[in-house]
């Protein structure tokens, strides 16, 4: 079973700079365990005290896993997983229309 996992810039030091890596697992918890075996240390950055880190958002096929069972969220072959840090944003955000940093 192959699931593509998109890695945010801030965590690419664990994936040798790769933007997206492949891992497998029937649940998000299994996936993160497999991911950690391939990229040691990554799991510890995402999980704190047994749950997803407060400032880490994980999406399965663009839906937030916290509404799909969090670490127990079920995964299937071909799913896309995206990991992102939580930042201040939105239409009230302080940085609306910020240009890329140079």
């Amino acid at each position, binding site marked *: 079973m192959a699931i593509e996992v998109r890695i945010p810039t801030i965590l690419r030091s664990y994936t040798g700079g790769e933007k997206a890596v492949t891992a497998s697992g029937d649940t998000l918890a299994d996936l993160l365990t497999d991911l950690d075996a391939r990229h040691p240390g990554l799991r510890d950055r995402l999980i704190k005290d047994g749950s997803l880190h407060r400032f880490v958002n994980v999406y399965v096929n663009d839906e937030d896993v916290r509404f799909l069972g969090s670490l127990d969220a079920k995964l299937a072959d071909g799913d896309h997983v995206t990991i992102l840090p939580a930042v201040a944003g939105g239409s009230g*955000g302080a*940085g*609306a229309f910020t240009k890329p940093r140079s």
Partner: protein
Amino acid sequence: MARFDSMLDACGGTPLVGLPRLSPSAAVRLWAKLEDRNPTGSVKDRAALWMVRAAESDGRLRPGDTILEPTSGNTGISLAMVAKLRGYRLVCVMPENVSTERTQLLRMYGAEIIFSPAAGGSNQAVAMARQIAEDHPDWVMLFQYGNEANARAHYESTGPELLRDLPTITHFVAGLGTTGTLMGTGRYLREKQPDIEIIAAEPRYGELVYGLRNIDEGYVPELYDATVLTRRFSVGTRDAVLRTRQLVDVEGIFAGFSSGAVLHAALAVGHQAMKEGKRADIAFLVADGGFKYLSTGAYGGTLADAESALEGQLWA
């Protein structure tokens, strides 16, 4: 009623408009809550007015005071208008690389601007505003991310308007930024219709926007309460642009890109309801019109061009 004593009194009471062509079926209908029909053209007029009124009534804000807020977006524009009419000075803290339209609009309404370093993004603007507030204890920071009056504005106005105009509402979909709109509207609607689904559409920006040095520098607005939401979708730039263009092409609604992201999530739940053979009345929130974003060029050309034009920008 269409007559008001002042611009402030004209806040809210926005139209709810059906989408006969984009609705998935006769049984699954989409409705747009047009928040661009507020005094300064965005949903943020509600939060700004409620936050200022709350600070006035609890004595934190007195005539002639200075309001400080980390924002260069719609909230700043709304606060600038309210501050001007209520007799306050407004100082906005925003990243130095913000678009000239934003700077011009803020200055036009009389706001003063303190720039924060571009590289630190919105998180640094928030941090800098907190520092400035410490240095100026007499200035009043309303702080939209943590101000209960932001969410209460929607509990007391947006929610009741939606239920009045659409008593058969089954879903409410809106963008997630400060989270005030979803928290306030969501709480009100759930109290009245316990089965309602409250859906968040969160913009997923180009990766440059997530340029933190460390996960622990992340931020979740103090107002956010996940129990209010049923589902939360992340919508990428390309889908948001595609849906924003569909809104104007198919239904004649010229909206900002955050509304495209919201429509994308609304269509996802709509198609699911249709597949399951359920009836649905899905109301989604159009936070602002498209005028402020025309200079991005993302309303025309190919989707790929639009996507790269918005890369690295907070388009919602």
